Structures are given as C-alpha cells and as structure tokens.
C-alpha cells in the first residue's frame, strides 16, 4: 500500500497529534506556575495555538519580564508560522474564507512538516487537516489538565516547574540545530542574552538575542 494512502496518512497524523498534543500538559502547568489563571492558560492554547510562543510568553512574564517584552518575544517566535503559510498556501488550495480562517489556526511546525512530507496534493491536504485537528484537540485538553494539576499541587519551585521551562525551550531548540550556522547562532544568542542580564530589564536580553539572527542571516548574500 502506498504511503500516501488515506488510512496511513490519518494513522500517522493521529500518532503525531497525540504525541505532540500531550506537551500541552507541561504548558498548562508552567503557565499556572508563572501566575496565569487556568482560563488564561486555556485561552492561550485555544487562540494562540503555537507552542514556542506560548511557552515564551509565560516564561518571560513568569521570570519578571514586562508585558511588552513578553508579547514581543512570543510574536517574534510566532512569525515563522507566516513562512510556513506561504509554503503551504499553494499545496493546500484552501477553498473559501471559512477553510482559510480555520486552516490558518492549524499552520504550525508539525502540520507543515507532515503536509510537506506527502508527495501528492490530496494526501498533503489530508495530512495537514488530520494532524492539525488531532494536535488541536489533544493540546487543548492537555493544557486544561496541566493547568488544573499545577493549581491543585501548589508550590511551583518545589515541583521543579521553573526548571521545566528552560527544558521545554531546549527541546524545541535542538531539532533546529541542523547546520553550523544555526548552532553558532544559538551559542551567540544565548551568550548575548546572558551578558545583558545585569544591565537590562528582564525580558529585554532575549529580544536582543533576536538581533543575532538578523546579523547571522543577513550578513551574506
């Protein structure tokens, strides 16, 4: 049977969706530990639905960063979804305003990877929708569970939840370190941010690290 057969596409999509969606437990837990309410944690997963940005917002604000730097970091991380959308638009051929408005919310790392992994248009469309919908459902249920769990358990530092946040960022970062340029960008970004910690308001050092990406990506033709 071809790998593009609908049954196999859906099976793979639900597998990825379930695995990825369960990260939502850790997001819900760290969001509540950072001072967000359970409804706020759930609203972020329902409405923003892009893991790295969500973790960044609660991470920066939880560490005492101001709202502007927290939101700015989250949005800079979310900007990559626009690039995914540009690549997906011709492949998905979304019909009408409704499909585009709903489909847009599902444009994230995993749905892009699963859709681009399929050769034929119909299989790519099916992979996108099946992966997106299964991640969406599991991610939101898991966020609720994690948020309620953290609220019930109490003291976030004793549970090590403050250490869970950088671990989540590391797990999101490592798959992106594919070549020397990205590895050096990561090292430089971390060093620039740490060097600025004593001199800048919390949240600002991370934003300044974004300039490393501008320099690293822009200096060559």
């Amino acid at each position, binding site marked *: 049977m071809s790998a593009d057969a609908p049954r196999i596409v859906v099976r793979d999509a639900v597998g990825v969706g379930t*695995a990825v969606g*369960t990260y939502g437990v*850790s997001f819900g837990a760290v969001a509540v530990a950072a001072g*967000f*309410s359970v409804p*706020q944690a759930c*609203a972020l997963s329902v*409405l*923003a*639905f*892009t893991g790295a940005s969500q973790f*960044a*917002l609660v*991470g920066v*604000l939880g*560490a005492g960063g101001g*709202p502007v730097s*927290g939101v700015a970091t989250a*949005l*800079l*991380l979310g*900007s*990559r*979804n*626009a*690039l*995914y*959308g*540009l690549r*997906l*638009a011709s492949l998905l051929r*979304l019909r009408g305003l409704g499909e585009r408005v709903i489909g847009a919310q599902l*444009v994230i790392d995993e749905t892009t990877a699963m859709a681009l992994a399929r050769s034929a248009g119909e299989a790519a469309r099916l992979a996108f929708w099946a992966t997106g919908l299964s991640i969406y459902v599991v991610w939101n249920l898991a966020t609720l569970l994690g948020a309620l769990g953290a609220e019930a358990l109490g003291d976030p530092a*004793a*549970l*090590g939840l403050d*250490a*869970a*946040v*950088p*671990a*989540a*960022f*590391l797990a999101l*970062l490592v798959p992106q*370190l594919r070549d020397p*340029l990205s590895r050096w*960008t990561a090292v430089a*970004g971390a060093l620039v*941010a740490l060097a600025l*910690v*004593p001199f800048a*308001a919390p949240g600002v050092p991370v934003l300044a*690290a974004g300039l490393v*990406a*501008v320099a*690293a*990506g*822009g200096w060559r*033709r």
Partner: protein
Amino acid sequence: MTWGVVLVTAAGCYLFKLAGLSLPRSLLSSPRVQRVAALLPVALLAALVGVQTFATGRSLVLDARAVGLLAAAVALAVRAPFLVVVVAAAAAAALVRALS
C-alpha cells in the same frame, strides 16, 4: 496576569498564520529574509534557555535549574520524548532542592 497580554499574543500569533496563507508568495522570496526568519527562533530559543536557567531578575545565578537543564540535555541525547525531557528537568531540580 492581565487578559490583555493573552489576547494581544493570541491575535498576533493568529494574524501571522493568516498572513502567510493570504499574502503573495513573492513577498518573502528574498533568501536573506528567509534565512533571518529561520534563524530567529534558534537565537530566541537559545537565549530563553540561557536566561531561564541562569538568571533571576538582573542577577546571574547557578542553582537547581542548571541541574534540571543538564537532566534535560541527557534526556534529549537519548532521544527521549518531549514530556520525558521536561519531567526529567523538573524532577532533577526538585530533587536538588529537597536535598539541599
């Protein structure tokens, strides 16, 4: 936390996704723009790892979170799934705090 940061973040993240599907593809065809966009999450995530592990307010500190990060790195090295990585870090940090 205020609802403002939640709603502004949500709206901004959604608009980026919708813009990508709606704007003409030629808009971001410059290789330089593509490269910067690909490296942006790398630099920001690495900075977040560093700051969230080694900073408290405006001070650089070495505490139980560093042990947590080490546990996460080990878990990633053996290709553990995301949740195992996060739980390993939390458990390691909680253990160090309980022992000290």
